[in-house]
């Protein structure tokens, strides 16, 4: 199948927009062919995941574009990288790896990308509006843009993000198109007590369960309270994109394309109906932990990057207590969010209490955490999913309230009552 190219697309391929646009357009068209797209469409912003260093190939690619004079032509934000430029001393990795990682970061900045260095670009002041076509990479950002903002991006990987940013074009396929955004599988939340539905910790667990059971379809979640907060939807989506291939979900009564269950399915019948029972939720929760211990060695929060509201909650939970000297307590967040949280007075008291803020990167993608033999506790299903493989640590998943209590005492503290009787 051939892709019908616009005059502009063809002029890129023909070299009239410069060599970088030719190379970028070649990649876009090859991907469009693989996606069976019949044409390309305009995108108004991009979020780049390619700026995280994974070895020589990613730097070769960025240099290949830059050497051809590449510049982005639409507003473009950068995802987390391998280094914390605000707290550089936190990096404990190989020196040469750090040098290469920095070269990669600098390369993307020189191409005109904004040095936002966050996996939660939707927490920045400027973010896509409903219906806007964008090219975002980073699995949790993709899910949030599609589901919560109602913007439209396909589930993009690295490389295409910067190509789309250079040309302002992307394949007209996948989640960009109305017909591919309707729900496939219905998840009925039923029989769970209301107080559990009002706890932050419920949402990443639900996301983990939904991701595992959605295949590559779009899940529709029915039975949640109306107007679930953005932070909870963020945690749900990030978990579902880790345990599964979810690029979009509908939460009836909360996300903009799902005012009703019927709207979410666009009148079609679900291909499958799954009842989310208390037993299934508890099983999903237990899957997120690899260990059980009476002590913990570290706490890692902020995957995806914590919002101002989440830092505020942390500030309130600490309530003048301090982190146990034998525990390392990390919170990953974006530099813009950290600046705002600082202005609002939440950061200094937390730092004084022993909390280590990590910006521009995340504790599970780069060597930042001090070696621990005891398990690491987290409130993030995504961190719980990836950290054991990436870092070789044992993980205990729990509510942020439990993470703070455990971080203060050093002893594992889990309030398991909330799962049973609220």
């Amino acid at each position, binding site marked *: 199948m051939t892709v019908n190219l616009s005059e502009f697309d063809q002029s890129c391929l023909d070299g009239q927009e410069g060599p970088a646009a030719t*190379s970028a357009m*070649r*990649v876009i068209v*090859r*991907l469009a062919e*693989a*996606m*069976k797209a019949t044409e390309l469409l305009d995108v108004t912003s991009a979020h780049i*995941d*390619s700026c*995280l260093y*994974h*070895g*020589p*190939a*990613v730097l*070769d*690619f960025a240099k*290949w574009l830059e050497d051809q004079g590449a510049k982005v032509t639409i507003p473009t934000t950068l995802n987390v990288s391998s280094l914390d430029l605000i707290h550089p001393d936190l990096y404990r990795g190989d020196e040469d790896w750090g040098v290469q990682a920095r070269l990669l970061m600098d390369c993307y900045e020189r191409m005109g990308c904004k040095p936002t260095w966050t996996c939660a670009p939707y927490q920045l002041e400027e973010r896509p509006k409903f219906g806007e076509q964008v090219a975002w*990479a*980073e*699995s949790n950002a*993709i899910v949030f843009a599609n589901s919560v903002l109602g913007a439209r991006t*396909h*589930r*993009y*990987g*690295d*490389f*295409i*993000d910067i190509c789309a940013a250079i040309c302002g074009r992307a394949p007209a396929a*996948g989640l960009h198109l109305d017909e591919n955004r309707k729900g496939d599988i219905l998840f009925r939340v039923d029989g769970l007590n209301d107080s559990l539905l009002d706890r932050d910790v419920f949402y990443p667990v639900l996301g983990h369960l939904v991701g595992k059971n959605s*295949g*590559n379809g779009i899940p529709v979640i029915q039975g949640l309270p109306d107007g679930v907060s953005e932070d909870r939807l963020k945690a749900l989506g990030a978990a579902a*994109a*880790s345990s*599964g*291939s979810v690029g979009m979900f509908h939460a009836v009564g909360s996300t903009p394309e799902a005012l009703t269950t019927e709207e979410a399915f666009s009148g079609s019948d679900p291909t499958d109906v799954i009842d989310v029972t208390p037993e299934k939720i508890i099983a999903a929760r237990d*899957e997120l932990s*690899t260990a059980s211990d009476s002590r913990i060695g570290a706490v890692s929060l902020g995957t995806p990057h914590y919002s101002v509201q989440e830092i505020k909650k942390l500030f309130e939970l600490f309530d003048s207590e301090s982190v146990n000297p034998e525990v390392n307590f990390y919170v990953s967040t974006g530099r813009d969010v950290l600046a705002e949280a600082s202005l609002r007075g939440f950061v200094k008291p937390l730092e004084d209490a022993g909390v280590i803020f990590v910006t521009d990167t995340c504790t599970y993608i780069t060597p930042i955490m001090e070696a621990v033999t005891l398990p690491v506790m987290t409130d993030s299903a995504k961190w719980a*999913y*990836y950290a*054991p*493989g*990436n870092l070789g640590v044992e993980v205990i998943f729990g509510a942020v309230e439990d993470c703070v209590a455990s971080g203060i005492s050093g002893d594992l503290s889990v309030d398991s009552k909330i799962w049973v009787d609220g």
Partner: protein
Amino acid sequence: MTMIFLVRGKANGEVLKLDEPLSFWGGVDPETGEIIDLRHPQGGMSVKGKVLMMPFGRGSSSGSSVIAEGIRSGSGPAGIIMMEADEIIALGSIVADEIYGKAMPVIVVEKSEYETYSTGDQVVISEDGITLS
């Protein structure tokens, strides 16, 4: 028989058929090819030089980078066969082809075709398709 090349290329190797989809980032060590996702049923095995089969793709956007790095270093799979198209996987191979002139074939086949291969089979992927050797 319907077969779609998401990325054209040649490969020759032993089939490793995964029971579940695998996220390349966080799931495969790009330097060695080992499956490091310990929750994955094939955790601990190596994808290096294998014709990897999985029903569809999963997980992180950074998978494209891990695929490209595996093609560059030679520790990645020789080819990938799925039942559904996956753009994250295709992209890694497209980019390796553009910058190094090395493509790893990525193929989508129908279920009936997918089911004819099992772990341990030796297969050859050419422009014409997949053949048992």
